[in-house]
């Protein structure tokens, strides 16, 4: 059975965006067996620092225990389900439940139970009743969690995507783990299915009519028209849609050659100077691979990111078939001058999220399109993803792009087809 119709052929049923039955199944089949991005090590500077995050719909505590190890714990008391942590962030040595007082250490261990001896009289095996602890892995500063014991390792889960994720987390100068998160996770709700967001970040390059207004206004800081700073670069490149068999996708420019820096931030000379220097350092550090300039992508199913002056990681939190909560972490280069950090921060705020001049129009369209998924007649007609079909190359145009990736150059709905194909595999099994 194919739930999503024929995604490889560019035909996707509308029902997958509106059926609450399929939504419930998605949580089990698509979200539960996956790895989730839950934060970044720069959020946890000191032992005891914690921050709440989400794995699928679940609230989790991401906490740094004594010695620096990071744990991801299900934020639900084993006694009667109460969230044991009720603050967005803070520093703690123990989490004590406000309902009946069970308390847990930073590894989730149930260390305190009122009336443990005289009440439970040996009948409560505390080792069995600790907070549910996720498998946790750190990848170049990014923190990942999975509650599924049968999921592959994070590295296997990512596959060739490790290249792009590492690249994302490298500073503009190509140094590993070169970013830090600024204060304040941006969180909001939108009235559309999470997959509208996912497919957009996976690579919806034909949606420029959405952004007529910001293109008209030149919101980039390149001093030139368009909304992207990198649009100012004139060096020849191939625009690549890079799809991974695990459902991850990447949008990237592959420049034909290593070329000198071209101004992308002319509006703020200090920033332009920083990027020039970084550009050169990166070429030195990465060599030929510095030709790769990522623009954004997703780690299947719901982590999404942008680069190119808007370095952010986000998650689409599935609330219902018709509602999604969005969280965004804003990244700035760890070692950049303050003016670079400020400029990027400001650029992001004006670009993305509910206050962002660009993404406001994306979300308007996603939420309006959402209504087209429920009607008696309209839902009988599938969506179309047939742009640029049948031309994917494996491990192309450079083998180092990944041995399993399937790549299409130019504007295409290839990445979206791949995303729904992977989704369909999991759902139709």
């Amino acid at each position: 059975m194919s739930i999503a119709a024929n995604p490889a052929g560019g035909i996707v049923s509308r029902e997958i965006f509106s059926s609450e039955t399929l939504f419930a199944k998605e949580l089990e089949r698509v979200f539960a067996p996956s790895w989730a991005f839950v934060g970044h090590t720069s959020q946890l500077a000191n032992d005891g620092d914690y921050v709440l995050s989400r794995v699928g719909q679940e609230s989790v505590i991401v906490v740094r225990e004594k010695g620096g190890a990071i744990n991801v714990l299900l934020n639900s008391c084993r006694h009667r389900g109460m969230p044991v942590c009720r603050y967005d962030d803070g520093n703690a040595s123990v989490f004590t439940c406000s309902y009946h007082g069970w308390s847990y250490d930073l590894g989730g261990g149930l260390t305190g139970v009122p009336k443990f001896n005289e009440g439970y009289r040996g009948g409560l095996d505390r080792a069995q009743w600790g907070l549910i602890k996720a498998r946790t892995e750190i990848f170049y500063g990014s923190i990942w969690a999975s509650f599924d014991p049968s999921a592959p390792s994070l590295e296997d889960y990512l596959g060739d995507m490790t290249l792009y994720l590492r690249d994302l987390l490298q500073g503009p100068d190509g140094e590993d783990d070169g970013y830090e998160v600024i204060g304040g996770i941006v969180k909001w709700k939108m009235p559309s299915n999470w997959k509208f967001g996912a497919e957009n970040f996976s690579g919806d390059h034909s949606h420029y009519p959405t952004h007529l207004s910001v293109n008209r206004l030149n919101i980039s800081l390149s001093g030139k028209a368009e909304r992207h700073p990198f649009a100012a670069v004139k060096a020849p490149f191939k625009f690549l849609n890079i799809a991974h068999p695990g459902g991850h996708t990447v949008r990237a420019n592959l420049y034909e050659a290593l070329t000198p820096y071209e101004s992308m931030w002319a509006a703020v000379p200090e920033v332009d100077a920083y990027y020039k220097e970084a550009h050169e350092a990166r070429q030195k550090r990465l060599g030929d691979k510095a030709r790769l300039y990522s623009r954004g992508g997703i780690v299947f199913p719901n982590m999404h990111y942008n680069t190119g002056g808007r370095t952010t990681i986000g998650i689409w939190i599935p609330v219902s078939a018709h509602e999604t909560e969005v969280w965004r972490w804003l990244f700035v280069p760890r070692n950049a001058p303050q003016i670079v950090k400020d400029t990027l921060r400001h650029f992001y705020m004006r670009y993305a999220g509910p206050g962002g001049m660009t993404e406001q129009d994306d979300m308007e369209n996603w939420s309006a399109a959402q209504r087209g998924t429920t009607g008696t007649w309209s839902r009988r007609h599938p969506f179309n993803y047939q742009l640029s079909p049948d031309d994917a190359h494996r491990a192309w145009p450079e083998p180092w792009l990944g041995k399993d990736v399937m790549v299409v150059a130019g504007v295409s709905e290839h990445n979206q087809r791949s995303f729904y194909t992977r989704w369909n595999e999991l759902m139709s099994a």
Partner: protein
Amino acid sequence: MSVDTQAAGLAQLLLQREVEAFYTNEVELLDDRRFTEWLDLFADDARYWMPIARNVAFDRPEHEYTRERADANWFDEGKDDLTKRVQQIVGGDHWAEEPRSRTIHAVTNVNIVKAGEGELTVHSRIIVSQHRQDDDINHFVGKRIDLLRRGATLQVAHRTIYLNQSVLLAKGLTTFF
């Protein structure tokens, strides 16, 4: 009352009225979509800041809202940015505002907490009701702190808006506060 007391009382009342009239005029400009005139109410070097709220423990109130010019915020910008936002709306191609919102802004409890030589610090509450299409509806309620500069007319030199929401319950902040 002595004549002097009267004069002082009257002056205080007139100042209060002036500021209330300023805000009433402002909400009328916004709700009538006279955005260009609305921009004129801001000084050229004005800042417009709306932080993000976090849920924090009782003993960390200073951490409740993100910081201006440092953290992620809903808005943290200048008049040039506000101008771009206005230019975006009036073009007819900013889909999140096309068709346009119908908004109603109400300002209450105007409190001149400091009346300096050339500047006033004014607190107020703002209630915003926004409707688009048939069912795209937002309600915002905010606490505002303004620095008003006194010249020929009043102008906003700095505006802070505190919303109550931590997770924003709107897909777009396409109105002004």
